[in-house]
């Protein structure tokens, strides 16, 4: 277990070193987040501010995710760390964690843009809102990162196959949508105890466990 986390930290450190040196993901996010947020805020009525926020996060996440796995691509088209002498579930898990951290940056930028242009006022719902946002991002990251890592090895149809993965996130959207709706009608404790919130949490735990294991199985020949 100790080795597992030290290897995860090592891969994460590598990703952060590359990120601080090249700043590619960050510049990508700084351009993409306000653009998408502004586009959505223009077309959706401002009464549905929570929905606008989540819609922005969802679209940005789908677009950004494809970048993550590309960092591991070598000139031959194979993932650089595929031949590494350790369990590949570690690689997948660290990539998921890296993407979750990037998701928090996405949330931060989108939140700031929304606060500026629409005077987003959350008051006492802030903790529950952040909890739902985090759960939503973790599940989304687990599914998308696993599949984009897998599909980077597929030439030609890879991008199309990634679009076919999108239906897998619909259950997440339904649960997140139901949780967000309950923010406006329930107290914080009631939201925490609601089925949608607990199912979202259960989904996250399940996916964080299952996706890295499945990834290591997918690479075996």
């Amino acid at each position, binding site marked *: 277990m100790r080795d597992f986390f030290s290897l995860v930290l090592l891969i994460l450190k590598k990703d952060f070193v590359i990120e601080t040196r090249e700043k590619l993901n960050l510049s990508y996010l700084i351009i993409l987040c306000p653009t998408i947020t502004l586009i959505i805020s223009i077309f959706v009525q401002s009464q549905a501010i929570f929905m606008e926020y989540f819609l922005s996060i969802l679209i940005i996440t789908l677009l950004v995710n494809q970048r993550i796995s590309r960092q591991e691509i070598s000139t031959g088209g194979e993932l650089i760390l595929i031949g590494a002498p350790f369990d590949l579930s570690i690689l997948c898990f660290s990539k998921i964690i890296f993407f979750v951290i990037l998701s928090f940056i996405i949330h931060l930028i989108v939140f700031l843009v929304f606060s500026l242009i629409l005077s987003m006022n959350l008051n006492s719902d802030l903790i529950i809102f952040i909890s739902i946002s985090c759960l939503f991002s973790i599940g989304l990251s687990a599914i998308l990162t696993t599949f984009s890592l897998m599909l980077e090895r597929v030439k030609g149809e*890879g991008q199309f196959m990634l679009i*076919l993965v999108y239906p897998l996130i619909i*259950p997440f959207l339904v649960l997140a949508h139901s949780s967000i709706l309950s923010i406006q009608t329930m107290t914080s404790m009631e939201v925490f105890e609601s089925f949608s919130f607990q199912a979202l949490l259960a989904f996250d735990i399940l996916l964080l466990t299952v996706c890295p294991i499945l990834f290591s199985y*997918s690479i075996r020949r």
Partner: protein
Amino acid sequence: MFLMFQKTILPLLAIFMTASLYMIFQYAPKEKIMGDVQRIFYFHMGYVLVFTFAFTMNLIHSIRFLRTNNKLNLKLAYIHAEIGVVFTLLTLVSGMIWAKPVWGTWWTTDPQLTTTLILFILYFTYLFFHKLSEKAGVPRYSSIFAIIAFIDLPIVYISVRVMRGISPVVFGGKGGGIAPEMMDTLLVTMGAFFFLYIYLINLRVRLDKT
């Protein structure tokens, strides 16, 4: 496994299906409020049973394929998904036919309806994903897709009880809310649809061999 029962399935299916049709239209009482349209419910539940079995078998064969790399499991997983998708579509269509005279609308955003539609989209996508992954030389990917897609199935069942919508709960905590004659008819119909499922799987496997 199912191929062992190949010769006994057809007579069993014929007996159960005839009994089921007799019970649905003669034995089961007419529902007081909904009238005769309620009889579609027995078929509706039969379809649900078939897709539940089909998707569970799809999951089992997908896990087996990942562990053993035996192509037969991959093929069987695909066949079960095909049958499952057809019966999920039948569930949705029969539900709509039932809903129109009862609720006055073909479709509503009831949690159970929505999650069943999601299930249909997921496995319909799986069929495409399977073909593409085989073409790309990475058949294992479709098994991984199937395992993650299966996570949605329990939500369909839980949603009807927890996220209370307008869909009825048949097998509730106190034995459900239907008359004993209706329950007998339902059980016989579900038996008939179980044999129909095994028969269809047999037929599809034979078709694949030829």
